[in-house]
């Protein structure tokens, strides 16, 4: 549709909003309430413009202007909110005339009359939409001489978000965000007229995605409590990188000041996270600045770990490894290492001549599916989704993309100015088409509240669940070919395995196969056994659904793709802990299991590369200070197989190095120029291996889809977890760092041991009690939380890198009240 904006004529698709037309034409209108990816509501009235359009007469001919002979433009009697007005053929938009200016001046004045104008002490100063717009479109003067509205200035909406009610300009972005994006309606306006303010119900903000409101608040009303009063916007270094707390690969911006990370914000990746991030990713960075962060290498001398230089440390490593045969040395990285670190580790393993190389945690089953995995966009546009697991905790951003699918609005086309500001297809109070979503898990997971169908199957029963569904799919096939074929027949065991009624299960299977775009989301419980993962893959194929596999850590996919794995099953991580005589462990802490610790103490030589003096580091011979995920340059691969860049923020991390740096230093000591001694050299390897250039990734990253065979599978350790009395569950919060993340600790109340009330009574456990317990050997501390949603006989505990998702055995004899009372702030 042809539209003329001031002096520019352009064509737009029907349905485009006038505000987007104005921006696409290179003009500006001020706005506050519109927000990318959210419904336009026309509330702030800042975007008003004079708009006109030609009209047709009864015969359908344009009514012509008598003087010019052109179609006559009929202006609307009132100024129109451009965000809620659609373009029309021949429309004329004026954003520059004096009339428009007068109204804009007036609206800025109205917006400011109750605003405290405390910009000099406001964190948003310098990055404030109201400040900018008042400067550009206001008169610079206020004629309002009365007392302003006084309201609470430090209202804690939760432990991590503070609301200044005086600064609020009532754009309603935060309210709409909760309703429309995570679908957790936890905020609303209270009171009316000039008294209107933002508030919550009593239980704060129960959602995994609360921090995004601090990104979209146009003013300084909603602030990230972790960074409040810590810096002005122009003092921050903004580093765009990728969130490494899970396999989603959300784009983030790390804001650092004087060498310290102050806050993390969401960044735009339309293919992945749009602009949203989860609270773990946003608020989970404080550990990086913990007082006990290691800042220089340590070397054991006379039984004590003492500071040393990198050269000294590297010498010690060289000397001590020199006495061992290569195959006695094991190397393991945590699965959020970058690809470059993976290349470095492989080069080191090769130089040392060992096949004992692995990344951990690594589930029993592969996280790289045989067929190309679903993309997050596939997920967001799916018409049938079946989730097995707790996606909201495993890969939170996938939860939000599922909600996109439930809203049923396809991702918008990019415009010249980026994401449309006012996508008129999005509606306030959207309807979530829950019938599109089915969720199965052994306990009640959050996403179930949006699911049309839910199933609670017995923990550990994933293989049986998929086998039973497969049986249904086959029976339906038979029925389709031959109407006389028997109806679906399941035995009692199969029915129990479904965790839902047969009718529901049949509807689920039919829904998936009849859908145009079906996605099966496979969580960690399924990956815990190869049988379950294989059954899931078979089922997905049978119903024609794509698979999206939720790997346990940020780069699980990439490290498997790169084959940072052992040459033989018995050399896998658990095997090397047993068998190797010397170990180099990066960011792994296996000594949390006292039995493993005893084994490690017997090793000839132990090198630990970590941020803190962990249990394992304490018994190491050499400790190397590690860079956090925010301090690394590199590449990661998310669950879709998308290569995404990491950039190091300017953080003062002492002499920390990533594993690339470790290998560089060791190579120097060995007198070898190893591949992967630097990010550049590692990338040369990656370029060859994957035929894409990690240094040149586009803004959305790059989807890796190999032409030939699927990537080689890593050989897998054979002892699979089966059975147990504790279900280790996925967790958005990284428990290993929780105690060094004071705000998240206060928000979550610490690591939770969720127990069925009846079981708790039996064990004599009370709600809120701090306990310690050995689970699968690992000593875990947690706070008891009574939860009727937990199946009897099972306890739930969040995962650690050393304690993968799935069933585990806990020795209840080791259950004790924790003498060291967890410190819970707030």
């Amino acid at each position, binding site marked *: 549709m042809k539209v003329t904006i001031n002096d520019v004529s352009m064509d737009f698709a029907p349905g485009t909003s006038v505000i987007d037309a104005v921006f696409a034409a290179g003009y500006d209108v001020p706005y506050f309430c519109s927000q990318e990816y959210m419904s336009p*509501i026309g509330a702030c*009235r*800042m975007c008003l413009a004079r708009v006109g359009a030609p009209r047709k007469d009864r015969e359908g001919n344009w009514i012509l202007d008598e003087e010019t002979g052109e179609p006559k433009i009929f202006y609307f009697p009132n100024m129109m909110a451009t965000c*809620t007005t659609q373009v029309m053929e021949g429309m004329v938009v004026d954003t520059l005339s004096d009339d428009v200016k007068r109204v804009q001046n007036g609206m800025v004045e*109205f917006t400011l009359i109750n605003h405290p104008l405390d910009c000099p002490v406001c964190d948003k100063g310098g990055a404030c939409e109201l400040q900018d717009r008042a400067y550009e479109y206001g008169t610079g003067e206020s004629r309002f001489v009365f007392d302003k509205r006084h309201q609470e200035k430090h209202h804690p909406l939760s432990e991590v978000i503070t609301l200044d009610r005086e600064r609020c*300009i*009532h754009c309603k972005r935060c309210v709409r965000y909760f309703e429309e994006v995570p679908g957790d309606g936890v905020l*609303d306006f209270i009171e009316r*007229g*000039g008294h209107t303010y933002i508030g919550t119900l009593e239980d704060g903000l129960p959602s995994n995605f609360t921090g995004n409101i601090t990104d979209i608040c146009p003013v300084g009303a909603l602030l990230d409590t972790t960074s409040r009063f810590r810096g002005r916007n122009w003092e921050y270094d903004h580093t765009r990188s990728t969130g490494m707390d899970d396999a989603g690969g959300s784009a983030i911006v790390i804001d650092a000041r004087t060498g310290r990370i102050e806050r993390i914000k969401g960044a735009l990746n339309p293919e992945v996270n749009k602009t949203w991030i989860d609270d773990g990713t946003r608020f989970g960075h404080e550990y990086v600045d913990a007082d006990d962060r290691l800042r220089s290498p340590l070397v054991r001398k006379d039984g004590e770990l003492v500071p040393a230089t990198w050269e000294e440390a590297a010498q010690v490593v060289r000397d001590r490894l020199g006495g061992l045969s290569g195959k006695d040395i094991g190397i393991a990285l945590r699965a959020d290492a970058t690809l470059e670190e993976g290349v470095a580790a492989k080069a080191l393993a090769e130089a040392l001549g060992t096949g004992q190389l692995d990344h951990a945690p690594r589930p029993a089953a592969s996280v790289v599916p045989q067929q190309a995995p679903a993309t997050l966009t596939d997920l967001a546009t799916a018409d049938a989704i079946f989730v097995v697991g707790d996606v909201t905790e495993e890969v939170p951003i996938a939860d939000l993309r599922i909600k996109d699918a439930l809203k049923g609005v396809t991702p918008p086309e990019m415009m010249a100015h980026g994401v449309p500001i006012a996508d008129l297809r999005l509606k306030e109070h959207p309807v979530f088409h829950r019938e599109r979503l089915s969720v199965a898990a052994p306990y009640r997971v959050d996403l179930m509240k949006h699911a049309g169908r839910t199933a609670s199957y017995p923990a550990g029963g994933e293989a049986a669940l998929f086998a039973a569904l497969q049986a249904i799919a086959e029976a339906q096939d038979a029925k389709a070919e031959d109407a006389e074929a028997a109806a679906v027949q399941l035995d009692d065991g199969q029915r129990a395995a479904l965790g839902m009624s047969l009718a529901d299960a049949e509807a689920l299977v039919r829904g998936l196969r009849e859908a145009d775009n079906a996605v099966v989301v496979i969580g960690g419980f399924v990956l815990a056994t190869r049988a379950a993962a294989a059954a899931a893959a078979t089922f997905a194929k049978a119903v024609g659904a794509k698979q999206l596999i939720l790997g346990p850590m940020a780069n699980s996919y990439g490290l498997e793709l790169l084959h940072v794995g052992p040459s033989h099953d018995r050399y896998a991580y658990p095997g090397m802990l047993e068998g190797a005589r010397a170990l180099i462990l990066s960011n792994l802490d296996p000594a949390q299991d006292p039995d493993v610790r005893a084994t490690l103490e017997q090793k000839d030589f132990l090198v630990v590369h970590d941020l803190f003096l962990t249990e394992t580091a304490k018994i190491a011979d050499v400790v190397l200070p590690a860079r956090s995920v925010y301090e690394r340059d590199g590449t990661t691969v998310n669950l879709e197989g998308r290569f995404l860049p990491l950039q190091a923020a300017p953080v003062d991390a002492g002499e920390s190095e990533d594993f690339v740096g470790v290998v560089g230093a060791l190579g120097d000591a060995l007198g070898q120029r190893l591949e992967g001694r630097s990010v550049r050299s590692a990338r040369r390897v990656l370029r060859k291996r994957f035929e894409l250039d990690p240094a040149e990734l586009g803004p959305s990253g790059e989807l890796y889809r190999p032409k030939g065979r699927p990537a080689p599978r890593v050989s897998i350790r054979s002892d699979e977890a089966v059975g147990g009395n504790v279900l280790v569950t996925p967790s958005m919060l990284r428990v290993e760092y929780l105690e060094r993340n004071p705000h998240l600790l206060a928000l979550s109340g610490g690591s939770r041991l969720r127990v069925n009330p009846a079981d708790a009574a039996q064990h004599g456990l009370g709600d809120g009690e701090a306990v310690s317990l050995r689970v699968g050997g690992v000593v875990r501390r947690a706070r008891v939380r009574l939860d009727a949603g937990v199946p009897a006989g099972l306890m739930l505990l969040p995962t650690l890198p050393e304690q993968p998702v799935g069933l585990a055995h806990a020795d209840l004899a080791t259950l004790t009240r924790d003498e060291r009372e967890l410190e819970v702030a707030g």
Partner: protein
Amino acid sequence: MSDVADATTPITSRHDPRYEVVMYRHVGIDGAWTLDYYRGHGGYASARKALTTMTPAQVIDEVKASKLRGRGGAGFPTGVKWSFMPPVDGRQRLLVVNADESEPGSFKDRYIMEDDPHQLIEGIIIGCYAIQATKAFIYIRGEYGLGYRRLVQAVEEARAAGILGKNALGSDVEVDITVHRGAGAYICGEETALMNSLEGLRGNPRLKPPFPAQAGVYGLPTTINNVTTMTSVVHIIERGADWFASMGTEDSKGTKLYQISGTVVRPGVYELPMGATFRELIYDLAGGPKGEAKGFFPGGSSTPPFPWRDEFLDMPMDYGTLANSGSMLGTGGVIVIPKEKDIVDAMYNVVRFYAHESCGKCTPCREGISTWLPKMYQKLLAGLGTREDLDLMEDMVRNTRGTAFCPLADACAMPVQASFKWFRDEYEYLVDHGTPMYTKNDWWEA
């Protein structure tokens, strides 16, 4: 003092023998709210006629032919609105009756619901049949306690008698009614805010499009009409469109319930053909002003007031005439302003109402109408205003005109502008002298 002095006597239609009372014929009669009474006076014959002798399309055509315009304020042609309903597609269709009547000066719906609720139910049955809805909601103003109880009682009676339900009036047409009580917000009379409120959401207006017929309450096809729009339909079906269209002016047909309040001898509700003049209403029916009047609101507090001049008093009360003269017919609630009521104080009263009722969604209304404007009036009335303040008020109010999300802001801004246009001398007197031109304030004792 007149016969209205007793506050317990309901204000009912006091009519001129020249005009037949149709919609208000049962109002003011003790017990008229019972089903027995209503049926005993020919009740439900009109609905029966529609359901048994007409198709839904014929009902709509009849209403179209009557040229009935909605009585909720905007005067939108009712038959045309009904024909906007999408074709039947299996989805639930809804009729919502707007009984939120909260505008100062409007009180015509109240007495129908209190004294003649079955007339409304009958209108709803016809309306539902026409738009093929099986379910109707009556959204009644929260403060209307008696009306609410009478309506609920009447709906129950009608249900028990088989007038409502699966087989309304013994036909195969299903109609049921839920009476929903508002919670005290004028904005919930605005049809989209009403829908939000009905759904349990905050009473903020919604975007249009989609219009209610496309996606109304719960996204379902919905038609919203005022109480007396629905009761007009009862008589249109009973007596025919021609009868209705034979009354009124070219622009506006039929009869209408006009309300008059303020300092007149007989305030009340009067049923007159459309196009009767203000003079007729004020003098012939309401007995003229008590004492000297200086102006009047023609159609409720949201319509710009006129000065007391012949050109306005002789104006016919129809939608088009009023619209062309810079005001609106609105709900037809005339409010007479006595000479000795200071206009600044009077307008402050109006402004306070809108300030209190602003929903807070949009900036010009929340900050301009709800916050700034009442403070300016307070400043003037405290004797602290200046001439510059008057200019400021006019300029600021201009910035709220036509810029808000819904018409509520205009409903305040336009009368304020009119008061400046016609009575600026009183504002100027106040700022120049520090005291109002008039100080009389004991109207309720007169």
